[in-house]
């Protein structure tokens, strides 16, 4: 007899070894809140959407944005704002649709895929935001500098000293460093949260995929 059949014989032998919960005990259980990873993913995703939304509102009220306004950039800023809200709504719709598709009654593989898909939607949204942050910073810097008298004075001073290249290089490096820090912090945050939350799911998904090779 093989080992598992030995186990099987024992497994089904005695059901009385298990705890027997009463009707009331079970009833109390269904009133409690779930602490599944899907719930956490939902909460964290909402926080992420909220974070980017809050960031866009916060930027509006700053000195930076009033400076932007004085530069008369409305013809650029308004379409950008409209596009960013449209993108937010689109991603949120996708996220919610995918979230609703998660069902514990699917097969294990399908369930894992749906969770991963939901996660990916939010990830793409964040990537989109980071990309627009980079592009925005570049356009803003270019536009700001070319319209800012303070800047052209400095540039003239630099070119008088023959240091135009050095001036631009410094500007470029500072911009890159600031962006790298912002993106680095966000990525670290990401890696921590989802690394912990999805470690087991990813492991098990890999294991299932491995079976198909």
């Amino acid at each position, binding site marked *: 007899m*093989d*080992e*598992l059949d*030995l*186990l*099987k014989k*024992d*497994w*089904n032998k005695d*059901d009385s070894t*298990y*705890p*027997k*919960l*009463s*009707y009331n005990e*079970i*009833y109390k*259980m*269904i009133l*409690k*809140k*779930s*602490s*599944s*990873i*899907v719930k*956490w993913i939902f909460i964290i995703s909402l926080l992420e959407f909220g974070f980017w939304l809050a960031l866009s509102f916060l930027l509006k009220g700053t000195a930076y944005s009033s400076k932007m306004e004085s530069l008369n950039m409305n013809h650029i800023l308004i379409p950008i704002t409209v596009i960013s809200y449209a993108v937010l709504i689109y991603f949120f719709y996708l996220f919610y649709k995918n979230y609703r598709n998660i*069902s*514990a*009654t*699917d*097969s*294990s*593989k*399908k*369930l*894992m895929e749906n*969770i991963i898909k939901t996660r990916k939607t939010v990830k793409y949204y964040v990537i989109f935001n980071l990309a627009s942050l980079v592009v925005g910073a570049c356009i803003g810097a270019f536009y700001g500098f070319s319209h800012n008298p303070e800047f052209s004075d400095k540039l003239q001073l630099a070119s008088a000293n023959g240091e135009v290249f050095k001036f631009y290089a410094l500007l470029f490096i500072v911009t890159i460093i600031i962006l790298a820090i912002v993106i680095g912090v966000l990525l670290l945050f990401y890696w921590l949260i989802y690394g912990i*939350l999805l470690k*087991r*799911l990813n*492991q*098990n998904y890999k*294991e*299932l995929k491995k*079976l*198909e090779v």
Partner: protein
Amino acid sequence: MNKELEHNFVKLLEQHQNIVHKVCRLYTNNQDAHNDLFQEITIQLWKAYPKFRGDAKFSTWMYRVGLNTAITLYRKSKRSINTQNFEGVEFKIKAEVYDDTEEQQLKILYKAVHQLNDIEKALVFLYLEDKDYREISETLGISEVNARVKMNRIKTKLRTILNP
């Protein structure tokens, strides 16, 4: 929520609770973790219950939700991870004093099964519950052939643990 729905569900789960206990037995190592997982499976079953259609057997449906919760949805608490390390050490000691009685063999087998990964445990669980390969493959979302191949590998693995 609908009182009648609640009542029907609790009644059904009370009757079939052993399935959930069995899942917990495989995926946890102590009473606290067992209760924790039982609680989460119950919630997941309840959440899915309104969509449960009578054409599937309640018990069959429970296997799916129970395993999905254990494998994917449930967040292990730190407690159970600590005990798992302890379990591993204990297993090694037991293997050394191994003797041939059936009871001893079973003890070692249970410990060996505990050391399998989540997916392997799911296969073993469904096998122990006398499910055929079609149902195993549908529950996990893999092909029947792959389920068979994997099952054979698990058997070999257990055999080597039992007869080193």
